[in-house]
Structures are given as structure tokens and as C-alpha cells.
């Protein structure tokens, strides 16, 4: 359950960047090969946000597909797991996307005067 620690990190980073204002929405980018389960983050989010300026914020997660480039034939292939085999038979793959673990943007409440 490293997602609990990760979610605590998310709340801390969001709180630091929210300029003391109430947070309405948090958008994360999570790669499919990142070893982080979005459902577990959703599960932990409300619990971790309780009592902070992030409490009540909507959590959105954008899942980034896993893509790797084959070292031999340069072909790009989609991966569901952090390893695989290219059609040419090679397993030396370089992951080019899918390992993201990022807070993309946050939306804060602004009261206008």
C-alpha cells in the first residue's frame, strides 16, 4: 500500500502550491507502468485530504499508456506491463511513456472583490 504514502505526498504538494486557498480540483497524470493503482489513490485521497485545504476537492486521474521503443528495429509498441517483446522478437525495450507520476494541475477557489 505505498499509495497511502504517495497520496500523503500529493496532498502535501498541492497544499504547498494552493496559495492558502481552497482546492477545488486536482488533476494527476499516472502512467500505466508506474506501479501505482489509480483506484487506490482515489481510495486514499479523501482520507488524506480531510482537515486540509484539499478536503472536498475533486480528484481526476489521467492514465498515460505504456509505450516502449524497441532497441533493434526502433518500432514503438504499447505495453500493459513494464516489459514485453517486440514483434521482431527482441526484449530490449526502452520505455518512453507510462512511468509518469505527476500532479498536472490544480484548481483553486478565488474570491473576487
Amino acid at each position: 500500500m505505498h499509495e497511502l504514502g504517495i497520496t500523503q505526498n500529493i496532498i502535501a504538494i498541492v497544499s504547498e502550491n494552493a496559495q492558502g486557498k481552497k482546492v477545488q480540483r486536482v488533476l494527476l497524470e499516472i502512467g500505466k507502468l508506474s506501479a501505482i493503482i489509480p483506484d487506490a489513490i482515489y481510495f486514499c485521497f479523501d482520507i488524506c485530504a480531510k482537515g486540509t485545504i484539499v478536503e472536498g476537492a475533486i480528484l481526476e486521474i489521467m492514465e498515460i499508456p505504456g509505450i516502449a521503443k524497441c532497441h533493434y528495429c526502433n518500432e514503438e509498441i504499447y505495453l500493459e506491463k513494464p516489459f514485453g517483446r517486440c514483434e521482431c522478437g527482441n526484449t530490449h525495450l526502452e520505455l518512453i511513456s507510462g512511468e509518469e507520476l505527476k500532479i498536472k494541475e490544480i484548481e483553486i477557489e478565488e474570491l473576487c472583490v
Partner: protein
Amino acid sequence: MCVTCGCSDSEETKITNLEKNQVAHYHSHTLADGTVIRHAHEETPHLHAKIHNTTINLEQDILAKNNLIAAQNRGWLNEHNILALNLMSSPGAGKTTLLTRTINDLKQQLTISVIEGDQETANDAEKIQQTGCKVIQINTGTGCHLDASMIERGLKQLNPPLNSVVMIENVGNLVCPALFDLGEQAKVVILSVTEGEDKPVKYPHMFRASQMMILTKIDLLPYVQFDPQKCIAYAKQVNPEIEVLQVSVTMGIGLATWYSWLNRKVGNSVL
């Protein structure tokens, strides 16, 4: 201040339509090249008191803080010519047994100190202490892995000597520790033959992150259904670069190869 575009109210022209109860704001902006842009917003007056949201682009890596501290640890270790290895496995694979034997066998050649990670108890640290080496225990409580800041604090407590080796025995877990850089020079995954031979494909993140896989308890091979070749093939499928060693600590099999790997690593880091 105008809430829609953020420009100052001071020069604004207001046109009020009493019939519709609408106010139109006119603004003019002077750009750097002297161009004057005029534009208008039409809105009802009460809109000025409404709450609206601002989006902030963060683009921030969630593990950035851990990675930064890990980089600082790595720098500190390099400056002190210390080789740090992060040993990971599931519980019971034989990390502590491998460590105590290694420390005892290499006493004359290498100074090894140990950071022990467990959820609870100092049992492992006590076992290591019996070898006479410096050791500190980190109890993570509910935490399932060590992180870079724990190692930062651990290194301060441990105060390992120059030109030495620090073995970090992570919490027994094949999932979470793979994600957290501690500042080590290499991750070593330990897998015993009493486990499933397909663990590399079941826990691919761990085996992908590791530079070396050590198969332990190979003296038990006659009694268990474990095909080392299959296991190695799985590991190479996940990580074609992974190096593999097969050892039995209690029978002393394969340890010489492990020690020469270790000495090579020390030679590379301690100049």
C-alpha cells in the same frame, strides 16, 4: 480590478444599461510594442462578488522530494567513497543470513556497515551486531518501504567510515521498495528457491529496477519445484541487463562469485 482579465480598474470606462441592469467594462492595454488593444466584458454587477476558480499548472513529479534527497545521499556517499547497496526481497528470502555471512567472511577486506529496515523489532539489527559491525535499525511502523529521508537520517546516525560499504536491508516486500530511490549505487533483489520461479514476472517493477538478482537457498533445489533456468529466463524477460548469482549461504555455495562482484563494485566506487 477586473475579475475577468485581471487588468486595473483605474482607466476603465463603465457603460451601464439600466434596462438590462448590465454593466460593460472597457479596458485598454498597451503592449510592449506600443499597440493599444481595447476590449470589453459584459456582465451584471453582482458577478464581481462571485467565486471562480483558477487553474495552476504544476507539472510536479510526486516523488520529486524523495528523488532530491536520494540525489543528496548519493552525493554524500560518493564524496566519502562509500558503496551503498539496496537489498530487497520478500520476507524470509534470506537477506539477513546472506548479510551476516558476507560481513563475517569479508571482515579482513571490507568495512561493512548496515542499515536495517523492518516494520517492527530490532531483531535483525541485533543479529547483524553480533558480527561486530556498525548497524542501525529503522522501524517503519506501518510503512512498507524505506525512503530517501530515512536513509539520510540513518546515515547520520550510522556515520560510516570513508572507503567502506553500506548495506541497506530494505523492508521485506517485492512491490513498494522498487519505487523509492534511496541514493544507492545498485539495487540487489534476493529470491529464494522456496518461492515461485515466476516472481520476476509477477513483480516486474522490482526486477526491472535491480542490477543483480541473487537466488538463495539453492541447496534446497532437490526438495522444491523450482527451475532456476526458468526463473532466470523470466528475470531476463523483464530486465535483459540483470546479472544473476546462485548461492547457498549455509552450504557456502556460490559465495566467492558474490564476493568478487562486491569487490569489483567497491573497486569501481572506491578509487
